[in-house]
């Protein structure tokens, strides 16, 4: 890799880091300030959970989309939701969802 390419990596890395750290530090300073601007803007608090929903939407698409993988996804998500509604935690619903998703994929491969 040429030095110009290393520089491109360094600038991209630094720029990405600044986008992660500067708004965080700015908000922490604002929250602790005495100027009265100590609340997070409402739109920002709404955007946070919606970003998670967007990440969910993006990750729903299977690695290799096909009728089988979409069916496995639908069944896997249903099982995840069902287990979550009973235990209300993160670990078991994910394990159950992945297990059932894998079973459907393997079953489709065998048949």
């Amino acid at each position, binding site marked *: 890799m040429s030095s110009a390419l290393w520089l491109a990596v360094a600038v*991209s890395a630094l720029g990405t880091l600044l986008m992660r750290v500067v708004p*965080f530090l700015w908000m922490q300073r604002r929250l602790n300030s005495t100027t009265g601007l100590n609340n997070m803007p409402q739109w920002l608090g709404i955007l946070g959970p919606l970003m998670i929903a967007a990440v969910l939407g993006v*990750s729903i698409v*299977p690695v290799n989309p096909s009728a089988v993988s979409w069916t496995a996804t639908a069944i896997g998500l249903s099982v995840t*939701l069902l287990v979550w509604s009973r235990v209300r935690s993160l670990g078991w619903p994910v394990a159950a969802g992945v297990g059932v998703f894998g079973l459907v994929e393997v079953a489709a491969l065998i048949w």
Partner: protein
Amino acid sequence: MNQAASHSPLRSALQGVRESIPLLGGYIPVALSFGLVATQAGFSTLEATAISALIYAGASQFLFVGMIATGAPLWLVVVMTLLINVRHVVYGPNLAALLPRSRHWPWLMHGLTDQVFALALTRLPQLPEAKRFSWFVGASLLAWGAWIIGTAVGATAGEAFTARWPLLGEIMPFALPALFLTMVAPRFTDKRWAVAMGCTILAALGLTLVGWSNVAIPLAAACGALCFYMLKFQNKRCEQ
């Protein structure tokens, strides 16, 4: 067990590590793929691993090596990489009130990816304040480490690995939607949030299916926010 022991930094960090394990189901296959794609684009194992360690943002890394491989000008590669990562600007402010002040944030925030943000925003409010810093360190370091190691393995043995266990690369990533579903599910008890969330999920899904996955997250979230505010407006009109 006394209070001090239950809040020991190591214990809290290990809790963060344990709770971020489901993220690896999505990280490892994608990191393996990135290592493989980067070497096929002419990067060495060391270079691919360095890109993962330094930039540490999945979609933009694929774009970076892809554009370099096609001979795009370096300034354009950097601009496009940064544009894809602009969405990270929203993540930090959402966590600011949940995390204590520390001089370590300038380097620790390097670990704030889409997935770590989602996990942190869900879990941090449920944890005692004394645990949160160490929890974040544990969760983000595990994810970062897995991403780097996955890239190195993908660059050295990615082809053999995917040929030997092809189904594993399809099954493991399902951990991500399953995890995110358990994170958004509690919001569905409120009608207004349910509509905004549903709108966001469908928009992100649609944008990804038409090949716009790079901009799907910010666009879909903006779409959901619009839904959220429009619904409030309609309710007000009904009340009048």
